[in-house]
Each structure stands twice: as C-alpha cells, then as structure tokens.
C-alpha cells in the first residue's frame, strides 16, 4: 500500500465524558481507494466518520486517545469547518440538507477549500451533469425533496466543498434499492472523474461490498475483521451475518452462533 492519505491510529472516542463509542480503531485509506466500513447499529460506524470529519460543540464528544492523520497532518478533535476546508467532506446520515433553502442555495452554501469562483462554477456544472434531476429542481425548497433527491443533493453539497476525501454515511438508509444502486453508480463514476478517495459507511453489506476496494467490519467500537472486498465477500461470517447467505445451507444450530461470537472476541 502506498503512503496512506488518511490514517487512523488506535482511535478512542468518548461521548459526554462517559460513554466510550470507539475503542482503539486503526485503519488506513490510500489515495484513490474506496474503503467500506460495515457494522450493525451502534457499532460506531457513524462515530468514526464524525470523528474524522470533526465534532461539533453540542455533540459533547471527543477523541481521547489515538490520532487521525490526513495528508500527514493531525486532525483529531479539529473543528469541522477546518477539516472540510482541508479537503474532507461528509455526506451525513441525518440532517443532510438545509430544509428551508432552495436546491440552488443549498449548493451555494459550501465554503470550498480552493475557493475561486471559476472552480465553484465548474464543480456546479459537474454536479448538474451527473445529477440532472437537481438541475430541474433548482428552485425547489430542499425540505420538499424526496429521499433520493435529498441524498443526491447531500452528495452534491459535499462535492461543492471540493473534497479530496469523501465520507458517505449510510447511503442506502431509507431508499429503494434501485435508487441506491443508481446513486452508488453515479458516485463511483464521479470518483473516477475527480480521482476522489472515499470512505463508505454501510449497514447494508451487499451495497458496500459491490464497490469497495477494502473493508473493515466494526462491532462494539472495535474492528473485528478487515480485508479486501473478495476476502470479506467470501468470509463465512460475513456471508451469514451480513449478506444473509448460509454457507452450509439449511438451519444452523445455536452452537455455531456462539462460535461466531468467540471469533469476534478473538479478532477484537
């Protein structure tokens, strides 16, 4: 692996000075890679992304141990707007658009890292090229958009920040599978054109494993499994618990489930 663009080292995040959400997570993202982070509810996926993008005052969360380096500079506990200007843009899970602004206004909000007007309009043209639907809805208030349109607008907003690293949180949440695969395809296409690096957080392993180069599986704030897409796809536990395919076929006894639990502890 070449020099990583983003490296997270033994990261520990504590909420409200009491709840440990991540305990000792390490991962690396090379330039141009798509890295997937999988896991169930409460595994710490979103917290990981938020830690990379930066915590806000009211989150009452902070990185208590470990480091996050982006292009060699340490950014843990940095302010979100600084990290964005450094080139990390986030597509959040909830509250992803400004509901009372129009689509066009939503796209004019971001403060880009390289802020020239020409850059902005070039990026805007690119966004409208890939998501023509947004172009049609330019004057529509964002709160009135459908789920898929909202997700497109959120991605477009993040792209307007002019990122080098794009963080996508739960792309598939609440969307129809056909829309998910459509947006995912667009995303991969845009990434190729802009040579973006991406981290994709997903609950739906099928969606994520279709596009990622490398993946991490999180449980209870720890990495329990990592590997490239093929390794994860073929891993029996992933097949069973994330993709819903039973390797043996038929029903399995409770004993094997316990086996998996032991595995997980072993990986942690």
């Amino acid at each position, binding site marked *: 692996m070449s020099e990583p663009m983003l490296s997270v080292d033994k990261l*520990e995040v*504590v909420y409200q*000075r*009491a709840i*440990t959400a991540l305990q000792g997570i390490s991962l690396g993202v090379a330039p141009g890679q798509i890295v997937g982070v999988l896991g169930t509810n409460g595994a710490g996926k979103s917290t990981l992304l938020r830690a990379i993008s930066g915590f806000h005052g009211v989150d009452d969360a*902070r990185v*208590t*141990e470990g480091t996050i380096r982006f292009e060699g500079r340490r950014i843990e506990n940095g302010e979100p707007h600084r990290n964005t200007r450094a080139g990390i843009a986030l597509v959040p899970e909830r509250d992803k658009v400004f509901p009372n602004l129009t689509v066009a206004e939503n796209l004019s909000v971001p403060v880009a890292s390289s802020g020239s007007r020409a850059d902005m309009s070039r990026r805007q043209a690119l966004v409208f090229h890939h998501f023509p639907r947004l172009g049609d809805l330019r004057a529509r208030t964002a709160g009135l958009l459908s789920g898929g349109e909202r997700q497109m607008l959120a991605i477009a907003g993040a792209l307007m920040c002019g990122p080098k690293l794009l963080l996508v949180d739960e792309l598939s949440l609440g969307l129809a599978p056909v829309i998910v695969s459509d947006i995912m395809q667009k995303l991969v296409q845009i990434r190729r054109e802009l040579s973006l690096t991406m981290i994709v957080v997903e609950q739906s392993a099928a969606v994520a494993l279709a596009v990622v180069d490398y993946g991490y599986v999180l449980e209870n704030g720890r990495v329990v499994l990592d590997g490239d897409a093929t390794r994860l796809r073929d891993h029996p536990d992933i097949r069973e618990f994330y993709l819903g395919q039973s390797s043996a076929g038929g029903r399995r006894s409770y004993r094997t489930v316990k086996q998996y639990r032991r595995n997980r502890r072993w990986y942690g």
Partner: protein
Amino acid sequence: MSRLPRASGHFRTSYAQDFRLIQTPLERRWLAALLVALLTFPFIASPFLTDLASQALLAMVGAMALMLLTGFAGQVSLGHAGLLAAGAFTAGILFRETGAPFWMTLPAAALVGAFLGVVFGLPSLRLRGLYLAVSTLALHFLVAYVGGEYESKRGFSTGIVIDPPVIAGKAVTDPRAWYFILLTAAVLTLLVCLNLLRSRSGRAWAAIRANETVAEALGIGVAANKLLAFVISSMLTSLAGALFAYYRGFVSVEAFSLFLSIQYVAMIIIGGMGSVLGAILGAVFVTLFPYLIEAVMQLLPGAGAYAGVMFAVNYAAFGVVMILFLVLEPQGLVGIWRRVQTYFLLWPFKHKPVAGARR
C-alpha cells in the same frame, strides 16, 4: 427522589428508607445543631445582622417556590417579581380598603397567588422554553401595571403604608419577632417543598422536565401537573410577597421591578438548579451580595468616588457574578458543595476523572 450515596456503610434497602427526610444519625445531629444555631442567632447578633437574616429567610421562601417551578418542574418563569407584587398588593389593598387583619390578608394573598398561578400557567400548556419565559415576563409587566394603576388612581402615588400585624394584642415590630416569623415561614416552605418532591407530583414534575412527550405517554397528566406546579409556586411566592409587605410596612410598585425577577432567577442559578438546598444557598448569597460589595468597596482606596453610584456598582458586580456562575459553574453553589462532599466521602481515594473528562 433519588439521592446520591451519603455515607459509607449506609444502605437504603426499602422505599420507606429511601423516602426518609433524615437519613443518618449524623444528619440528625447536624440538623439539631443548625436548628439551635438558627434559634439563638437573633439573641447573639446585632439588629442589623438579624434584619439581614430576615431578608435572606424571606428570599428563601420565594427562591424555593421558583426552584419548585423551574428547577424541578422545568417551567421557566421570568415573572416572579409580578407574583411577589401580587401578594404584597393584595395585602396592602385589603388592609387599606377594609382594614383586614393579617390572618385574613395572608390567605387572601395565597388565593390571589393561586389564581395568578393558573393565569401564568395557562400559556405553559401551549408554550415551552423561551416562549414560556417571555409570556411570564409579559404577565409581570401586566401585574406591575395594575399595581401602579391602583397606586395612582387611589392617590397613593408614593406607595401604600401597612401597619405591622397584631398578634395576641401586640403589634409585631421587634426585629427578633420578625426573624422568628420568617424563620417559621421558610422552614414551612422547605417542608412543603421537600414533601411535594417526594410525592407523586414531585415525580411527575421530574418526568415532565425530562421529556414532556414521554411523560404524557407514561400516563402522567402533563397539563394538570404543570398547572399544579404553577399554582403551588405562585401561592408560596404570593405569600412571600405579603410577608414582605408587612415586614417592610410599605408597598410600592417600584420595589417589584424586572430586576427583582432577575435576582430570583439568579438565586436559583447561583444556588444550583434542581436542588432545594441550592435555592436556600442562592437566596442567602444574593441577599448578602450587595452588602458584601459595599464592604469590599469601602476597603478599596478611592471608593468615595463611587458612593453616589453604589447601586450601579452593585448591578455591574451582580452581572459579573451571574455570568461567572453561568460560564464556570453551571451547577451552582450546590455543585461546589457536592464536590467537597464527594471529596471527603471518597477520601483518601481521590476521584480520578476518566481520560475523556478533561475539557
């Protein structure tokens, strides 16, 4: 009423134990000592100090009432001075117009307070947070206006003079007698508050304060309990206002400015939200504060220049203290007190914050 662990080796194993007001023998001894100190205080202290203590006791009644409403039921009120004014004016007007004795005016003040409590509380059924605070603020201005209107229409433009109450054929004018009357009032209010808080309504208020929707879903009558909080708090406050009127012997609308409301809010903030002890500490602190500032100013060189604007110095210092508490110690005096307590409770094992605790 959930409590922190008090002492090592003391476990509460039944609800009855948990509800007990006095938990340990040590607490009982401390309380007895405090009571003796309070009872002997006026015989040792100078009349000036006795007067100060009386003022603090009076403030405690109002502060505890506000704490009940804001600190426990979570309903913000910026109209506390309006309720005090209502009580004072009820007593004053009844005395002036009908010559009613104090044992009639006090219940009347309580009734007026209860009625105003409903009026102040009605907006709370629709409003929350800031908007509620604003509506109580508006009601404060209304009450003050009605009081001022009465003063000017009846020709008491400087204020209403009230004779001291007559108990057993004797007019109460002695500061010591007043001290004991107000001490009784404060202790009674304290008992009312503590008992309410460990009752069903106290628990309902805690639930409402935490989350109204969930409280409603759990079968708590949110509207009724909110109104109850307003009514009880207003009654107590109104009584405090009437007592204030008798204590001063004088009622004037100038005494019940917005600043008084702010002072009461400051009491519960400085004392510590959500604690009856906090209301008491805050009331003492805010009452003594101007005298403290004056004393400090006299020690400083060149203070004579500020003698004419002493009230302004007070204002400024008061603002600074309030800001400092809000920014540095949101838990108030009680927070400091608890930290000291915990320190000794855990001694010699120091409380070591987890890594995330440093800010």
